[in-house]
């Protein structure tokens, strides 16, 4: 778990660098993504989190500093396609990343682009559709799938390239609560059982609770980084950035302020319920 998969060193990114009106989206970012880790990059709109995601798979090139993926520098053109194979990207809008009018053909797209033989492509497509729970929809048209299923198809579409890491840029923001749960459950399963590194970019703090580590961006800089319990303890800092605490943490924080000594490990509503149940039994 300690092997570094993506190393970001003193990264700066400026949009429209050549013009006078250049916009500095990221500055001085130092970050390491460990192999097998579930990392959440959180931040309000305009904090630079989507830009950072696109620097991970060489869709954008750093204006300053370095991004090294599995030892490969994203600035070197020869590395680009291997980096994109290793770092699978899933985007916000489920409709705008599906290329084919047939689910299995869409899942095959990435593998076909790698020039794999037909049998290998078929094998991988069957496998990834099974992993994402879409096997029964193989010959369906994607526009008939639900939002959550479309995002799972997008995940299948990158898993077929056998990436070591999934980067998801606000994948749940256009989904209903059921689709959101479905997607999070799939991500956690892939991370735990397949040891896929997951980098989830989001502005929903509820999703950050499930991560191994949370990095909070604000105005293109890292504001705070650490395990969820540690990050969520910084209530004033998060509020200043404009991030809303998950409901359970909001309650816990309010209770603490009124003099109830609740432990910092409480992150979800279930933790909170379990704590009160134990408390009731003790009393």
């Amino acid at each position: 778990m300690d092997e570094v998969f993506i190393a970001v060193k003193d990264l700066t990114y400026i949009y429209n660098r050549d013009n006078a009106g250049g916009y500095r989206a990221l500055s001085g970012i130092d970050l390491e993504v460990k192999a097998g880790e579930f990392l959440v990059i959180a931040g309000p709109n305009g904090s630079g989190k989507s830009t950072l995601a696109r620097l991970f798979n060489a869709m954008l090139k750093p204006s300053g500093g370095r991004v090294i993926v599995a030892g490969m520098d994203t600035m070197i053109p020869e590395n680009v396609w291997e980096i994109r194979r290793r770092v699978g990207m899933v985007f916000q809008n489920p409709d705008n990343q599906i290329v084919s009018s047939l689910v299995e053909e869409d899942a095959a797209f990435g593998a076909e682009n790698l020039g794999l033989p037909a049998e290998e492509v078929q094998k991988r497509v069957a496998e990834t559709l099974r992993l994402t729970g879409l096997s029964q929809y193989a010959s369906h048209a994607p526009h008939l799938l639900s939002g959550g299923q479309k995002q799972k198809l997008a995940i299948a579409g990158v898993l077929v390239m056998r990436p070591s890491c999934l980067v998801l840029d606000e994948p749940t923001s256009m989904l209903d609560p059921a689709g959101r749960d479905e997607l999070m459950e799939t991500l956690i399963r892939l991370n735990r059982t397949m040891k896929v590194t997951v980098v989830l970019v989001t502005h929903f703090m509820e999703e950050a609770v499930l991560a191994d580590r949370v990095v909070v961006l604000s105005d293109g800089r890292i504001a705070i980084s650490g395990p969820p319990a540690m990050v969520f303890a910084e209530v004033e800092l998060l509020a200043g950035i404009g991030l809303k605490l998950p409901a359970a943490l909001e309650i816990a924080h309010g209770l603490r302020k009124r003099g109830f000594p609740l432990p910092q490990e409480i992150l979800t509503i279930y933790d909170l319920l379990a704590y009160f149940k134990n408390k009731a039994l003790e009393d």
Partner: protein
Amino acid sequence: MLSGISLGQYIPGDSLLHRLDPRTKVIGVLAAAVSILAFANWQGFLLAALLTLTALLVSKLPPGIILGSLKSLWLLLVITFLLQAFLTPGTLLAVLGPLKISREGMFAAVEIVLRLALLILIAFLPTLTTPPIKLTAGLESIISPLRRLGVPAHELAMMMTLALRFIPTLLQEAEVVISAQRSRGAGFTTGSPARWARSLLPLFVPLFAGALRRANDLAVAMESRCYRGGANRTRMNALKFSAADYVVIGVTMAVLAGVIALRFV
């Protein structure tokens, strides 16, 4: 209101025609179309008509669907018939006021309508019996030898695939825009043609803006999935000719040869 576009749309089935390689169907239909355009006597017509009829029967498509394609193009048939009948000079058959019908005109009119009807019937067979994605793969394979002449075969096929993929999405979006604007009092079906056309503008502007945004997102997503054009790309379902494909190509070519030979008898 927008889902009624069905002319030539794929009808799932399990006939011999459904199972043929898409390239066979395209080549076969081209050969049949040339035969239909080339016959010069009734023997040739019989051969071409027999081929068309056999293909229709083998396809096992419901007759309603087959006649539907003729029905939707009936105006074309009627106009062609009238033009041929009235405008061909020759021995007079009848006079209707300023219009004269000649014997030659009647013959020419019947002939051209027969040709057109056969063409329409056979032309929709490939799209009716092949899923669009397979048809696209077939077309790409057929035009790929032209790559050396600078024809972007892969790019054309990819454009078709993406267009097919996004037609339902854009239709759904159009429905949403229409509902949104109706709920604010816009009318899309009332008024004079000029007003009607103007009322479509607020529909098309958001639709176009949306399509451009989608295209941008899609390009990023495709590149992220290692897409870099047609070179080195493989396909999951490679096209393969079976014995039936060779037989079908043989038969259609024989009919074409027969029709052309009959011109010289």
